[in-house]
């Protein structure tokens, strides 16, 4: 599963966008993340309208730039869909084992695994700081427009302080249990491609073939 996710991560050219969107939605379905399964195609469609149809209605250079940005964002959204699956289903253990299997250097493998673990922590702290700002009446759009830097400083500083504190136990515990050690780590269950990967691989192959055989209408 992981290997497949990694290889399709940066599809080049917008002709692969519909395929990536379908893949992202399908992966979301496989883990029962209904919100993402529905949202992904919707956002994709909306951006496609902005990117390719808007210039038809109102031909103006500025709109064209906007359209360019939209068509660029749609690729991003498509990739995020697949990336979200990676973050939601991969545990730090699995990721670092996979990276090691791919012979990534120790520094990169360890750092990526730690990042994967820290993401929910920092996101949670960021959410809590936003909550606190809302309750103190510091998060309004008007305030933000008047003092953008000050408002963002008031978000960033507590967020960093709280994240550092929250990460302390985590990193202390992990380092004591040998995380980042210079010893050669092993994997209890070495990552192997199984039949689900085969199935996904086939499906992706199908999507790519379909994309290539259909004449580029949009792309």
């Amino acid at each position, binding site marked *: 599963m992981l290997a497949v996710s990694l290889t399709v991560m940066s599809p080049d050219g917008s002709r692969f966008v519909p395929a990536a969107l379908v893949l992202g939605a399908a992966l979301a379905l496989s883990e029962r993340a209904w919100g993402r399964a529905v949202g992904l195609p919707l956002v994709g469609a909306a951006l496609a309208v902005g990117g390719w149809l808007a210039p038809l209605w109102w031909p103006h250079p500025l709109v064209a730039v906007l359209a360019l940005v939209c068509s660029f964002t749609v690729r991003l959204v498509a990739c*995020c869909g697949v990336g979200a699956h990676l973050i939601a289903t991969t545990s730090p253990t699995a990721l670092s084992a996979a990276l090691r299997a791919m012979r990534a250097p120790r*520094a990169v493998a*360890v750092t990526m695994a730690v990042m994967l673990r*820290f993401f929910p922590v920092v996101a949670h702290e960021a959410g809590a700081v936003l909550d606190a700002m809302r309750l103190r009446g510091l998060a309004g759009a008007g305030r*933000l427009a008047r003092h953008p830097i000050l408002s963002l*400083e008031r978000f960033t500083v507590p967020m960093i302080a709280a994240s550092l504190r929250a990460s302390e136990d985590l*990193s202390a515990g992990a*380092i004591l249990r040998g995380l*980042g050690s210079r010893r050669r780590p092993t994997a209890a269950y070495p990552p192997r491609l199984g039949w689900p990967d085969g199935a996904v691989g086939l499906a992706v192959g199908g999507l790519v073939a379909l994309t290539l055989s259909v004449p*580029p209408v949009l792309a």
Partner: protein
Amino acid sequence: MSDLHNSDGSQADQVIVATAAPLADSAGGAAPTPPGGPGLSIRFSARDLVNVAIFGVIFIVVIWAVGMLGVISPLVWLLITPLQIVIAGIPFALFLTRVKHAGMISLFALIIALFFLFSGNSPISTVGIALLGVLADLIFTTGRSRSKGRAVLAYTVFSLGFFTPFLPLFIDREAYFATAVWEPMGQAYVEATDRLLSLPVLGLLALAIGAAGLAGGLIGSATLRKHFVRAGLA
């Protein structure tokens, strides 16, 4: 480095006053000098890796959170990228206080670049961010002292990485204009749009991003003084 077996009783009996190296010290500190000369070792300790990871995550979450503002208030939408650069200067400045030796900023940049690659950035941009990180690393860690000026300059250079995602927009342009959508619009119109995205505009954008990076570096170092040093975090 050392192994389990070289610890015998005589060593245990020695009275050692261990002081962790203050941050301003260059690489090594009390530890034996690693091979490769001081300041240029890239043997990261577990602590270094964890620090890079946590600040990488904070950096990305800050960028993402500022990006979200665009959804709340359309007023901010046009200012998003410069604002992201300016605000991300705050975690970067604090990160620099945890940099103990060369290589950490490069690793930080590499990780950020890989993350953005996974979330749909182009390969050109990924390489660009990583290279700018190495450059920032050289700027920050080669001097004898870690001055504030070097920190600001390092961030300015690193922030140019925000410009790299725009590169494909210009490189890919031919392909974009060749698509079917543009055919009914006429040559003149295509040329007008083409001009809007021309080289001078590209230069201007790079300049604006560089300026935002400078502002971010300054704000980062100001915030460091205003908050983190006084709070005992830096």
